[in-house]
Structures are given as C-alpha cells and as structure tokens.
C-alpha cells in the first residue's frame, strides 16, 4: 500500500488517548514552581464556585476509588464495596513564575484518608462556611485538626437569606483562634475569591514571620 510509508507511526498514534494531549492547557514556560491552597467545606457550601471564580483553566476533576479489605478475597464483594471520591481543582499563575493550585476537598473522613500527601506543603486552608448550618463544618474541622497544622482563613459564603453574624461569633462557634482571618461575600465574583486567597496568604506570612522571630 502506497500510503503505508507516509504514515509510519499510525499504530502509535492510535494508541494515544487523543483528547488528553489535545485539551491540555500547559503552564507558561516561565513557571518554575507550584504551591497549593486547600479549599475545604461542607457539601454544597461553594468550594467549586470559589475555585472557578479565580481559576485560569476550566475546573478539572480527578477521582480516586476506595475499596474495602475484601478486594483480592472475593471480587464480587470487592466490586460492591467500592466508592469514588472526586476532587475538583483549578489553577492560577501568580507573579509569572509560580502556579497556585486550588484543591477543593470535601469534609468526609474517607476523603482525607485517601488523598495521602494532599495537605503536605500547602500554603494553607480556606474554610468555607454557610452560617445557616455552621455545624456542617465540624467534620471538616475535625479532619483538619487531625491531618494538618496549616494556616486557616474562614470564608463566610453569604447565601441569600443567611443571617449576618459578627466575625468573632463565627470564629467562636467554630472554635478557631480569634486572629483567624475571616472574609465574607458572594463567592461567585472573582474579586471576593481573590480577596479570600490574599487574606489566607497574608495570614500564612504573619504566622511564618512569628515562627522565625520566635526561633
């Protein structure tokens, strides 16, 4: 066949998942490092919304599967006891050389057990809360306490009809230190989301400076 020589690696091309490479939005060549912030909060509190408001790429998602101990013993049981946990994330390049990743992490215990290394080396945690159901944040806070010692900033998502609360009252209710930064607003706007990130990073800088001057 005459065309065979002009397409020597047709087989190889075939083997490539086609849209993975085509759809990828690579970082600029100037980017040499990455940092991350965890965006945590109860179900439906606005994590994905906040990430989407600042991300320079469309929100991406990756899944992990949790399987119980029955795997390898009985495949039929194993298939039944499998659940999937997804993580949404976004990215924003700051200052030209640094990629800031925003990982949206649900509160459930199984999530934290699964994503080993997720919190390691993070700048800090944005804790999103809905003041109409503050108690929903407790499981997230328990997980944070257990797995990290990261700087935390609170973001109060002002859903319509949510009663206004003094920052101090919210922090007390969450049992967080009263110097914890707290910002509130509608997270669908980019300005609010960026403000929340700034508050967290500024807090991280303060804590780090205090640490190094104490040492």
């Amino acid at each position, binding site marked *: 066949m005459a065309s065979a020589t002009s397409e020597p690696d047709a087989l190889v091309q075939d083997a490539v*998942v086609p849209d993975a490479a085509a759809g990828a939005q690579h970082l600029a060549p100037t980017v*040499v490092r*990455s940092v991350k912030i965890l965006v945590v909060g109860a179900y439906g509190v606005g994590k994905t919304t906040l990430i989407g408001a600042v991300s320079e790429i469309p929100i991406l998602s990756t899944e992990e599967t949790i*399987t119980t101990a029955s795997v390898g013993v009985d495949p039929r049981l194993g298939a039944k006891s*499998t659940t999937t946990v997804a993580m949404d994330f976004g990215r924003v390049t700051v200052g030209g050389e640094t990629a800031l990743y925003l990982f949206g992490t649900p509160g459930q215990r199984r999530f934290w057990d*699964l994503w080993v290394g997720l919190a390691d080396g993070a700048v800090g945690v944005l804790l999103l809360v809905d003041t109409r159901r503050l108690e929903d944040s407790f499981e997230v806070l328990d997980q944070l306490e257990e797995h990290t010692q990261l700087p935390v900033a609170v973001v109060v998502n002002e859903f319509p009809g949510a009663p206004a609360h003094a920052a101090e009252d919210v922090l007390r209710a969450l049992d967080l230190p009263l110097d914890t930064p707290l910002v509130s607003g509608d997270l669908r706007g980019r300005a609010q989301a960026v403000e929340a990130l*700034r508050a967290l*990073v500024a807090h991280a800088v303060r804590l780090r400076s205090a640490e190094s001057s104490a040492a």
Partner: protein
Amino acid sequence: MPVQKPVQKPTDGYHDHPVRSYVLTGGRAHPTRNTLRPETLLCAVDDGRELPLGAGRHERALLETCRGTLSLAELAAYLRLPASLVAVLVSDLIDAGYLAVRSGGAHDLPGIDLLEEVLDGLRNF
C-alpha cells in the same frame, strides 16, 4: 482507609481501580518515590528518545500530554485516571528519564519569600 494492596492476581481486574492499577503497573500499588504530590510540576524530557515499543498506552498518552508543563493532578484529570495510578506511572517514567520534575523543593513548606511572592502576585490581580 488507605487503598488496599491486592493480595492476589485478580480474575476480573477491570472493575476497580486499585486492582487495575496493580495490573497496569506490573504488580506495584505504590510509586517508588514519595516526593510526588498532586501539585508537582512535570514536563516531558525533550531529547528525541522514543518510548520502547512495549510501553503501554497510558505511558504514551501521559508523555504526549506532558509536552508542556502540567501538575500531576492535571495529568490525572486529562487522562481520566486516578492520581494514585498516575503517580506510579510518572514515577517510572522519571526513573527511565522520559519525564522530569519541574518544581523544586517538594518536601518543604513554602518559605516566607515564596509566600510573599504569591501574595504580591495576588495583589496584582
């Protein structure tokens, strides 16, 4: 609970990820290096070397997708594979010299200089 390491070769391995990962990675359920994180930046090594003929389609897709810099999490999302599996594949490709880690200091907390740089970057939005 952590992902379980399978104790025997599965008979119908394509129904759940840990078992599948085990097959795809030649029997290992964990990457050989522990420095890989979801935000670790990766880039294909551009030296014209081709993957060996026996390389799997996930390895090929992974290198293809890494023609420019991406994080491990982005790779997993684009390839529609669990990040734990991608970490194993990435680890092997790094060891074989096809893929390089671009971000440095993956073990440490971000230092104060880096934090201030990020803060400045956010102020300029």
